[in-house]
């Protein structure tokens, strides 16, 4: 027991709650096999800590104490309630007698990983995987998640209830997938984390472009995942998010308007995040087993190395996009490659590629395809056509800052045309 004055115990419990409660929760989920029961016994355990620690001193391993208190409280509660529901006695018996390694560090660390895999299980609707992960693994409240996704708490609460019911009814295990299933399952987890990040970095609708809290949460989640599972693509995703984040302050004007990569003040880029991102890209590339996240991060790292847009190694960026097209072919990747080609070989070459994509019927609802087309036409001096591309892009853009950006472009083109 550690000697701590009684007055500081509530503060200590508070800080332990912030850092440890989700880990304790994850272990309780494993021990009790039930989300609701785990949540209840978690709050019981912290309530007990508030009562007992001032009297008896703070235990040397508070987390282990909380897990064991939570487990005990749960068994206690089940025994009390067994008179309403006889099946609870059997369950209490099983939990009470099972020999679980409560404090084994490795096991406990794995519990959060188990929980991530459970919340991102393919049997759960992908729309529900994201909020479920944010709530159960990261500890965000339903209200916080609802506000981040611009929906009402009751709507979000129902999704989470459905997710938990699915886990219960489909008997989704609290387990780390077998080696054979692992690659596919990691992919699902990574895509959930990236969705959370993107929702924070470039919110799909609303007045502001970034919701930093969600991006931070995604990065925290990826760090945790990497700690538990040092997979090259986990490194790649973390690197990608760190490199994106390094430009967070440079990509928006004080008025909240978008500033394109080429126009950003590179002095504002966060060098620490870049250094960490680049070192992760290196580690992942040297593993030889990397995938799309690592390649995207590698592209971002090339930008991070350049003093300005003109000095960027566009050849290398095109080479990375070629690689990415093979690893994860998509029209959006093709569009980005076309923009890079325009930087290497001139706007005509890029424009031909973009128009081929659009003629094929791809990306015709994607505002960035038309704004890229408009930008290349502008560089070629075809101002009237450029203006009409930007106009079309504006009809497709949903976010206020995107719309302001496009309107500004159109106004500038009109001005040039009038001169």
């Amino acid at each position, binding site marked *: 027991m550690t000697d701590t004055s009684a007055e500081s115990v509530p503060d200590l419990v508070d800080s332990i709650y912030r850092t440890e409660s989700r880990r304790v929760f994850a272990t309780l989920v494993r021990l009790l096999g039930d*989300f609701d029961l785990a*949540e*209840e016994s978690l709050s019981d355990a912290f*309530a007990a800590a508030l009562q007992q620690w001032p009297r008896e001193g703070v235990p040397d391993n508070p987390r282990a104490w909380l897990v064991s208190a939570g487990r005990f409280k749960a068994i206690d509660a089940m025994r009390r309630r067994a008179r309403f529901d006889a099946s609870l006695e059997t369950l209490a018996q099983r939990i009470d007698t099972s020999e679980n390694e409560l404090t084994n560090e490795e096991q406990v660390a794995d519990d959060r990983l188990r929980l991530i895999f459970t919340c991102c299980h393919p049997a759960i609707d992908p729309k529900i995987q994201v909020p479920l992960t944010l709530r159960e693994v990261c500890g965000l409240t339903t*209200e916080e998640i609802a506000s981040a996704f611009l929906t009402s*708490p009751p709507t979000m609460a129902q999704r*989470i209830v459905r997710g938990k019911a699915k886990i219960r009814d489909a008997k989704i295990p609290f387990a780390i997938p077998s080696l054979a299933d692992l690659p596919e399952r990691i992919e699902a987890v990574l895509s959930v984390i990236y969705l959370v990040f993107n929702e924070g970095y470039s919110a799909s609708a609303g007045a502001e472009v970034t919701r930093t809290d969600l991006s931070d949460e995604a990065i925290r989640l990826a760090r945790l995942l990497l700690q538990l599972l040092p997979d090259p693509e986990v490194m790649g995703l973390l690197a990608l998010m760190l490199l994106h984040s390094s430009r967070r302050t440079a990509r928006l004007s004080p008025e909240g308007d978008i500033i394109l990569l080429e126009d950003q003040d590179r002095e504002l880029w966060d060098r620490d995040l870049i250094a960490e991102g680049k070192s992760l890209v290196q580690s992942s590339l040297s593993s030889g087993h990397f995938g799309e996240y690592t390649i995207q991060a590698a592209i971002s790292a090339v930008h991070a190395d350049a003093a300005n847009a003109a000095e960027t190694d566009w050849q290398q960026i095109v080479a990375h996009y070629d690689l990415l097209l093979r690893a994860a072919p998509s029209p959006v990747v093709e569009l980005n490659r076309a923009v890079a080609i325009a930087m290497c070989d001139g706007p005509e070459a890029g424009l031909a590629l973009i128009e081929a994509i659009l003629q094929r019927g791809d990306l015709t609802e994607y505002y960035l395809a038309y704004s890229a087309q408009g930008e290349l036409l502008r560089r070629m001096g075809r101002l009237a056509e450029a203006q009409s591309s930007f106009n079309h892009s504006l009809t497709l853009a949903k976010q206020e800052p995107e719309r302001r950006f496009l309107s500004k472009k159109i106004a500038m083109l009109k001005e040039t045309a009038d001169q």
Partner: protein
Amino acid sequence: MKFVCMGFIEESKWESVPEEEGQRLMNECFDYDDELRRGGHFLGGEALKSAREAVTLRFTNGNVAVTDGPYAETKEMLGGILLLEARDLNHAISLMSKHPGVKMGPFEIRPADEQVNALVAERDAAFKG
């Protein structure tokens, strides 16, 4: 977060329950309230008498009109409220889903408006001070 949980019951059905059975159901609810107290979730509650004992006031044409009975004539009537402390809406849902009262009629769970409540508390303190 504080939540107000409103329990609705079908009064005629509830009144037709034999006394002994009614007592048993009530005790079951009280026992679960104890469970909520243990976790620090039970902040308080009020049981209501029959809606037949209600009067409703309405301000119409510059006057207050008084009518017998509840504001809304529905099959299920508000039977009582419970004040609940929970981490978030999903926590409140999970706590109240296990409440035996839900077998007697629906619960409506609403977050307390803490902004307005803070103003009320301020007035309260000023008045007492």
